[in-house]
């Protein structure tokens, strides 16, 4: 194996710079906004007033320079069955990752990557314990280099596995040959129609709104409320109609934004199975390719939001272990949106063991009140308070009660679990309906919970946790018959007694 040291493509310097800028935008805006509001009169130009204008370009140059340095000092190479990376100017960092620890390579092609046929490679490891440490990112390398890394890895792994002693060169070549013939079966491709459906019903609206809320809450200190208040009063005189229209316009723009974002992100979404890996590609402007080893999949989850359920659609998410903290790719949307009745075949192809239609045991009839009683109890004072304080219109809050009641009934109808040979399936609804399919060996623990009220009716709740990313995800079904839960507990017990 050659120990030649490789550099990243020069475009990395620019990418580093842009990334640095992105991190700086927020502090910058704050500095300028704060400056703009505090002084007011620029007439008495004291020299301190210019500090931001001096610091600004200075920081810019610094970021540009550091981006350049980062690229200049970054080298990677293979040695002793390790991927070694070195970078840093003053603090020299070395990161050696044993090849057998590398789980998968993920590729991202941004807009800047594509004209030069480059790709960003993220190296994922099993991520046990000290997470962020064992990860590496190659900001921009040529596709040939990426291919080379891939084959080198495969070669090294294979060699380790078969433990061919001594330098049996012929054997090695054979292995390389074998490795290149990967059987890949297409599993799923999202159609344009489904993409549009996904985009239009995307929950991204909420994301954008919360983003706006965060943005404004950050700036609330700098907003001159008195002035705005006066303006709002004037604005109000135009009438409620205009207010309503503008709210609607904001909503519309937010929704449109989310449609565009979703379309860009999920354009040409495809799932392919390559040996024992799932390969996922998506994106229009920024192409992403993510590989997930099938052995890392901990559980499968089907999510049906009310709106999508109405049209018979659902999303299939796989929970996979490993990765790093804050890595959102761990909850991988296997099928971002599919017809509920079409998931069986592709899922069975990927996971032969999976039992998608087990015999569900539903929450018993006597459990019904448990789903709305408690909510009533704590909503009551709120509703009463609102009704009294905003007397005529406050009474509208009474409408919440039937809504809670109906939602409770709906939740009750969804609650169920099923225990088959090697799999526990759990189904429950908060607002969206989730269905978990978990293999017994993936369940980290099983907990039965019982309140005194549940005890009186011989009911209990059950929850299990599986690994997802570096932490876990918990599936819980409330208010089931205690005998049924006891049965699951006994089933889960390794001793089986």
């Amino acid at each position: 194996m050659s120990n030649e040291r490789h550099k990243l493509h020069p475009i990395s310097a620019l990418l580093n710079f842009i990334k640095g800028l992105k991190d700086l935008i927020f502090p910058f805006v704050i500095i300028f906004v704060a400056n703009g509001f505090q002084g007011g009169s620029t007439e008495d130009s004291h020299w301190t007033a210019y500090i931001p204008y001096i610091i600004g370009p200075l920081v810019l140059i610094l970021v540009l320079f550091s981006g350049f340095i980062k690229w200049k000092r970054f080298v990677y190479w293979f040695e002793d069955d390790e991927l070694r990376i070195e970078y840093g100017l003053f603090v020299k960092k070395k990161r050696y990752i044993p090849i057998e620890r590398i789980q998968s390579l993920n590729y991202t092609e941004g807009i800047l990557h594509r004209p030069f046929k480059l790709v960003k490679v993220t190296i994922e490891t099993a991520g046990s314990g000290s997470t962020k440490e064992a990860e590496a990112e190659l900001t921009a390398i040529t596709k040939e280099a990426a291919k080379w890394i891939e084959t080198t890895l495969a070669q090294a792994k294979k060699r380790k596995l078969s433990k061919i002693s001594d330098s049996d060169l012929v054997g090695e070549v054979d292995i390389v040959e074998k490795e290149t013939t990967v059987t890949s079966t297409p599993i799923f491709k999202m159609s344009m129609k489904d993409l549009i459906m996904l985009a239009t019903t995307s929950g991204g609206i909420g994301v954008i709104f919360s983003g706006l809320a965060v943005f404004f809450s950050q700036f609330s200190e700098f907003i001159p409320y008195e002035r705005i208040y006066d303006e709002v009063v004037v604005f109000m005189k135009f009438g409620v109609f205009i207010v309503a229209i503008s709210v609607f316009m904001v909503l519309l723009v937010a929704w449109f934004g989310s449609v565009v974002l979703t379309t860009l992100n999920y354009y040409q979404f495809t799932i392919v199975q390559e040996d024992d890996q799932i390969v996922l590609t998506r994106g229009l402007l920024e192409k992403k390719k993510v590989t997930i080893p099938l052995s890392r999949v901990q559980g499968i989850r089907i999510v049906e939001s009310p709106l999508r359920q109405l049209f018979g659609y659902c999303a299939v998410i796989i929970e996979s272990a490993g990765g790093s903290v804050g890595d959102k790719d761990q909850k991988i949307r296997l099928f971002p949106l599919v017809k509920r009745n079409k998931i069986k075949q592709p899922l069975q192809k990927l996971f032969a063991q999976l039992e998608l239609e087990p015999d569900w045991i539903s929450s018993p009839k006597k459990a019904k009140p448990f789903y709305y009683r408690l909510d009533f109890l704590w909503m009551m004072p709120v509703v009463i308070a609102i009704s009294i304080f905003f007397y005529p219109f406050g009474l509208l809050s009474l409408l919440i009660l039937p809504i809670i009641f109906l939602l409770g009934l709906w939740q009750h109808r969804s609650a169920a679990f099923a225990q088959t040979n090697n799999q526990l399936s759990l189904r429950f609804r908060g607002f969206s309906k989730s269905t978990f399919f978990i293999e017994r060996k993936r369940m980290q623990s099983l907990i039965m919970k019982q309140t005194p009220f549940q005890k009186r009716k011989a009911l209990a709740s059950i929850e299990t946790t599986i690994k997802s990313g570096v932490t876990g995800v918990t599936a819980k079904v409330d208010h089931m018959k205690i005998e049924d839960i006891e049965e699951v507990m006994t089933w889960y017990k390794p001793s089986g007694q």
Partner: protein
Amino acid sequence: MRNIPINQISPQGLKVWRLYGLMHSAIVWLLAIGGGVLNWWLEGPWWVLMICVVLPVLYTYLFVILFPKLQWLRWRYEVREQEIELQYGLFVVKRTLVPMVRVQHVDTAQGPILRKYDLASITISTAATTHTIPALITSEADELRSRISTLARVAEDDV
């Protein structure tokens, strides 16, 4: 109905919980006294004074006498060859089952108060969850820790 796990935690644990309860009761008492003095000084209504007396008394009763007792009575654990079973909870009774195969590591921990009573807590970690047995005699805890780690190493995966 399955039989509940057999082992109880140390009676000393109850004392420690009472001590913890006393500690936060003390804070509540301080706040109440502060409130009472302020009320007297500002000549506030008499019922505020009543609250300042009743609330801390009630709090002390609940967190020093009643809750620790209930919690202690509820706590049960059992370490079997292939699984660990716990039962705990004040109002909501929780029954936890952790297969030995899933156990990744076991820790014992001992704060200053626990040390004074010669107690330690055991924390059992799986890949995604952690479970704690709160108050065991130190020697017992150490023994249990090594027992669990041995059993966890031996346990065969049921793939």
